[in-house]
């Protein structure tokens, strides 16, 4: 807490959103329809730096969650509208369906229970499939039976969050990165939020979508009692050569109480199958390390589901951390908390938004809007821009279209990332992103360069060359993932 008299030139907003993950971005985008001043404060250098950028990239159907829960209702609603929002914002999306695999009669019993639960939640089309249909829908996958979910889909979570944030920014939302909140105090019916570097932001409504930090933000605002238990999930990324092995997400029948969905295999929009995640409670909220025992476990369990998967296909790994409310002993899930705090009017808390948070992000955003509407007069803008177009992606085009594109813009003819066929124009678009984020990961997640089998061996030198020679950066200013992650010590001579 700090005294008001210390305040420097404070920026006053109607709404401050803390956290630029998928939820914060969705809320920002939804509220940008209205005549409001909105600032998003994010402690990292870019959007989607936490769980939103570190998951299985699946649009869930909603059968995993307890009937009557917010999780179930918002997930089903989110699933139903997901393709539309992806079309509106030009985000890669593919309806693949999904299979839960049974290895024995006990699994079949569990899957039948899941169908019953899913139907209660309003999921459509769930059905058991026999071994023959299993082999037809997912050739090469083990198991004696399965459950088929037709409305599960895959999408690109980075592109989704980028699209939400950029669209929000176009509609007037201010994004502040490297802005970790250090204290919050009440002021005249509203809040004053101070960042670690001493900037102050005032607002009437404070929205806490801080993910792993949401319990701490709530406490800073004066509402204690929440606790987030970080639960890490590790993943492997497979080479494109393995892509043909699978075109539908396959999960094991869930074991009760594990607090995750079990190690599964998911095809991605980019042609790299994912394996994971594990579920392991850890103490540190930002320890995204991978560990040797889990790495072994992932490969073992994945090859039980799909025996053709081999270690040699691995091109990378990552980890995400679930912001769980369920403590280690309890396991499973506790429902999302999405509400205005009675004891702290104006504070809208979003706590424990783990999976299926991204699927549910738009309904969550609308729920937050409904809460805000009771506090503020929401007047729609006349000039709200709902649609967003992503510039063409060279590798998705036909050869004729590629030829045309190069003749329009020669930089589409310079392929800088050879694994993912990303051109210089696409890299330039990513460098010049509207949110003004300057890091290698900003380029990675927007243009998808450096993500292939050579891990940037070919394109990193070329991208850095561009940043130095065309954008005037010094080598020592170039970071991998924001300040503190400098890639180089300087020039050689």
């Amino acid at each position, binding site marked *: 807490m700090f005294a008001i008299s210390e305040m420097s030139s404070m920026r006053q907003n109607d709404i401050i959103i803390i956290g630029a993950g998928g939820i914060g971005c969705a809320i920002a985008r939804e509220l940008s329809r209205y005549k409001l001043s909105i600032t998003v404060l994010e402690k990292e250098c870019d959007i989607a730096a936490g769980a939103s950028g570190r998951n299985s990239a699946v649009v869930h159907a909603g059968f995993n969650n307890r009937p009557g829960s917010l999780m179930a209702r918002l997930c089903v609603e989110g699933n139903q509208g997901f393709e539309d929002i992806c079309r509106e914002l030009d985000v890669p999306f593919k309806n693949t369906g999904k299979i839960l695999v049974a290895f024995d009669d006990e699994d079949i019993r569990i899957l039948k229970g899941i169908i019953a639960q899913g139907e209660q939640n309003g999921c459509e089309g769930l059905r058991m499939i026999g071994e023959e249909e299993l082999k037809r829908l997912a050739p090469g996958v083990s198991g004696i039976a399965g459950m088929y979910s037709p409305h599960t889909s895959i999408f690109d979570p980075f592109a989704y969050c980028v699209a939400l944030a950029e669209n929000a920014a176009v509609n007037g939302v201010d994004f502040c990165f490297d802005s970790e909140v250090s204290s919050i105090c009440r002021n005249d019916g509203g809040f004053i939020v101070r960042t670690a570097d001493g900037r102050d932001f005032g607002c009437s409504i404070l929205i806490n979508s801080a993910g792993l930090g949401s319990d701490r933000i709530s406490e800073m605002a004066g509402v204690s009692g929440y606790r987030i238990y970080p639960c890490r999930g590790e993943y*492997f*990324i497979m080479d494109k*050569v393995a892509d043909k092995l699978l075109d539908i997400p396959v999960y094991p029948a869930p074991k009760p109480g594990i607090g995750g969905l079990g190690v599964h295999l998911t095809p991605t929009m980019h042609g790299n199958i994912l394996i994971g995640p594990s579920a392991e409670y850890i103490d540190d909220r*930002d*320890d*995204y*390390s*991978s*560990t*040797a025992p889990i*790495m072994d476990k992932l490969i073992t369990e994945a090859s039980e589901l799909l025996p053709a998967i081999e*270690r*040699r296909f*691995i*091109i*990378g*790994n*990552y980890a995400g951390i679930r912001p769980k409310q369920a403590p280690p002993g309890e396991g499973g899930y506790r429902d999302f908390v999405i509400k205005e705090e009675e004891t702290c009017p104006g504070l809208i808390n979003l706590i424990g938004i783990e999976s299926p948070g991204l699927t549910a992000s738009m309904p969550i955003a609308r729920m937050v809007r409904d809460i805000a509407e009771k506090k503020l007069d929401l007047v729609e803008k006349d000039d709200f821009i709902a649609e967003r177009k992503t510039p063409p992606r*060279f590798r998705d085009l036909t*050869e004729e279209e*590629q*030829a045309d594109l*190069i*003749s329009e813009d*020669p*930089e*589409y*003819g*310079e*392929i800088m990332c*050879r*694994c993912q066929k990303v*051109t210089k124009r696409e890299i330039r678009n990513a460098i010049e992103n509207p949110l003004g984020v300057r890091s290698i990961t900003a380029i990675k997640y927007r243009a998808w360069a450096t993500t292939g*089998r*050579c*891990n*940037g*061996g*070919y394109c*990193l*030198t070329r991208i*850095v*060359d561009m940043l*130095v020679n065309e954008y005037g950066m010094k*080598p020592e200013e170039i*970071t*991998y*993932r*924001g*300040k*503190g*992650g*400098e*890639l*180089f*010590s*300087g*020039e*050689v*001579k």
Partner: protein
Amino acid sequence: MEKCDILIIGAGPGGLAAAVGARKAGAGRVVILERDVSAGGILNQCVHDGFGLIRYNEQLTGPEYAVRAVDEALKAGAEILCGHQVIRISEDKTVAAASRYGLKRFSAGAIILATGCRERTRGAISIPGSRPAGVFTAGVIQNFVNVRNIMPGRRVVILGSGDIGMIMARRLTLEGAEIRAVVEVLPEPAGLSRNVSQCIYDYGIPLHCSHTVSRIIGKKKLEAVEISEVDENMHPIQGTEQIIECDALVLSVGLIPENEVAEIAGVRIDTRSNGTVTDEFLQTSVPGIFSCGNSHRVMDLADFVSQQGELVGYNAVAYINGSDMKPWEESRGTSMAKGFPEPDTVTCTLCPNGCQIRFDGEKYEGNHCPRGVKFAEEERISPKRMVTTTVKTEDGRLLPVRTDRAVPKESVRDVVQSLKNISVRTPIKCGDIILRLTDASGETAAVIASSDMYQLLPM
């Protein structure tokens, strides 16, 4: 659609020699497509010496070898198109390549894949730990340090004792970094013995064999690595961990044939090595598509790659003419001495044999030719080294340079230091004198450009 007899993909040593071989065998139009902005391939960033011992019977640096190889291909009448990335290659031997000048299509009588290799990555070997800034492969570091004038760090650990790793250990040392450890999972260094001698021993760099990096530490920026001894299955042994603080980790953990383009063509790839599967004439599973050099199988020396390239050029023409092809002898290409030099010997670097020569107080043994005696004697009494490094050009680029003769080993650092603060004006030709080194007795050596460098045109 442009027509040509032979279309070659890649203008590294393999592709350039293939063009020479094809033209010598009577090919009409020979086109090389190169994705980089200039020809020469990875040779251009290999500013160290050790190239050309077989092909030219000389000690050349990588850029010098590239200058010769490019010159030979051009003189033989090949066309080299830089900045062209192949995006399609079909079984009927038509090819599409993207460049800033448009999407060009070619139809060829035969195609030669000379696409080189890539490096095995951290991702592929699954090193546990965090994923901070500061972890690179050795070839990437070589490019940053030797071509783009960017230093990765000041305290460096190198995982893997492949040749590029050891060469970069020396290179980074000479540019002022401290190599805190070279860590090798095998009981012996993986690279050539001569590199163990001249890159590791010469600079007193700590070498930990039968060890691996068992964990990477540091959230945003690399802070340290944990290294562990490994058992016979190469698994880390618990209780042997030690932490080494560093700001860069450089991986030299193997090279993998680069066959992205071959995959598009439907060419059969060996799933274990990732090399192309060919017959003895280096023809792939698709008739009329050939493969040579590191994209076929990773070789020890560029010289071998050139030899194979020349042969494959000949065979591609023979394919078109329906005449007899020549087989490649599989024993060539990976014959060099590797691992620890034998104790109390010197590794002769005059030719690729790498003879390990011992002096028993009276006579030398282990040498296969008389030159070895002279080399070993000099190495015993006053060892000398060729100095290879870079100097800055006035327009801010780096020019590879070397001394025109070997200089006393103890003066290598001084020579590199004396070049730190000078800059040269372009254009410059390979062989031009940059600086004369003198002592009281006069000129001791000259520093010469080891590549051509053209003037940058004003934008």
